[in-house]
């Protein structure tokens, strides 16, 4: 094994010993990697600043017995720079990092689609071209889709009948069942989102930003609640950062 190179996004850093950190990176080719950054907490460290969460880095790593060791790091793009002065966006970005970590449970199992999704999500969040809340929900929905858990939004998840499309009314959405249900299949306790909220979910999943950006605040809020509930149901453990996400409205 020895040396290998890759690029990736820093997801998390944890203190190790006196001055080191364990850096968790979602890489382009090697999936999620945990590696030691030696001496990076010392203020004279050559690359401490490059191994901060959100940073896209180009790395050279040395394979170790338990953890790999980072021997070189160059910044590709510091996505975190605009977040540190904007607290709500920092909380959204952090939720994206934790989600990416949770959707790559197996270390070193290639996860290129999740990596590309994260890069795109962080870029959109940094550009400020869309509501942070929408960027986050699009990221969560598409992470679910990559993992094979996309919610059924076009047909009844239980019988396959086409979903009703009364644009003004509300639909039945059953989180445990995995999406929309028709009226006859609707289980007790199903959520009843507005049809426009479901349309927003569909737009976010498909990357239809024109529709998403034009959506109303109340539908955005309902969508966030539904996506969060759906995500928490389909992952074994809660995404802790979601609780701390702050929205400006």
């Amino acid at each position, binding site marked *: 094994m020895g040396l290998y190179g890759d690029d990736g996004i820093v997801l998390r850093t944890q203190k190790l010993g006196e001055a080191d950190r364990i850096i968790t990176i979602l890489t382009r080719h090697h999936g999620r990697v945990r590696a030691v950054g030696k001496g*990076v*907490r010392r203020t004279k*460290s050559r690359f*401490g*600043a490059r191994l901060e969460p*959100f940073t896209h880095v180009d790395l050279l790593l040395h394979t170790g017995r338990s953890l790999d060791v980072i021997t070189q790091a160059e910044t590709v793009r510091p996505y975190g720079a605009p977040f*540190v002065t904007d607290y709500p966006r920092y909380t959204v970005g952090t939720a994206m990092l934790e989600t990416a970590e949770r959707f790559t449970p197996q270390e070193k199992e290639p996860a290129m689609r999740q990596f590309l999704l994260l890069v795109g999500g962080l870029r959109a969040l940094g550009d400020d071209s869309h509501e942070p809340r929408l960027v986050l929900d699009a990221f969560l929905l598409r992470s679910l889709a990559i993992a094979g858990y996309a919610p059924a939004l076009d047909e009844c998840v239980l019988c396959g009948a086409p979903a009703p499309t009364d644009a003004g009314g509300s639909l039945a959405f059953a989180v445990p069942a995995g999406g929309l249900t028709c009226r006859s299949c609707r289980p007790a306790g199903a959520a009843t989102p507005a049809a426009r909220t479901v349309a927003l979910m569909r737009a976010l999943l498909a990357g239809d930003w024109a529709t998403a950006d034009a959506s109303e605040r109340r539908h955005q809020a309902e969508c966030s609640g539904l996506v969060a509930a759906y995500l928490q149901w389909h992952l074994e453990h809660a995404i802790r950062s979601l609780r701390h996400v702050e929205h400006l409205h």
Partner: protein
Amino acid sequence: MYEGVVQSLIDELGRLPGIGPKGAQRIAFHLIAADPADVRRLAATLVEMTQRVRFCSTCGNVAQEDECQICRDQRRDLSVICVVEEPKDVAAIEKIREFRGRYHVLGGVISPIDGIGPDDLRIRELMARLADGEVTEVILATDPNLEGEATATYLARMLKPLGLRVTRPASGLPVGGDLEYADEVTLGRAFEGRRLLDV
């Protein structure tokens, strides 16, 4: 595996931060070979620590009374509070002898990915200290890394409506590092040249 108490000692030492199994074994055998009087003094200090050390009811620093030495010192400038993450940051800043105000120890940084939000830190206590209007400047000296910066941004936003001077030690502290590792000259300069935070 070693016999009874030797193994227990290695296990206990191995639970300390930054000490792995090998380090624990090395320290254990050092203690076994050391003068028993030295080891008893260490043990007595540990016991005394558990009985006497607590956290200052005002600032959260380590203390031996209800309040720490700094909070009890009448010569300190009551108009300035320096906010830090941990008690060890208080020690690092005290070393440079530049700062004459008092401190507020948050007990960590906002790190949602670790499940730590604003409510888990001593932020409410900080707001309570600012209520009487005696403090006119708050220096946010969290670590110069991403989580430290984000925590400073959060605090600056909360403090701004109070009409205080909210400052941050000047950049020059390298990004990514821990405050405790900054050398005294750099840290001194950072405090002298602190900048106003505009949120």
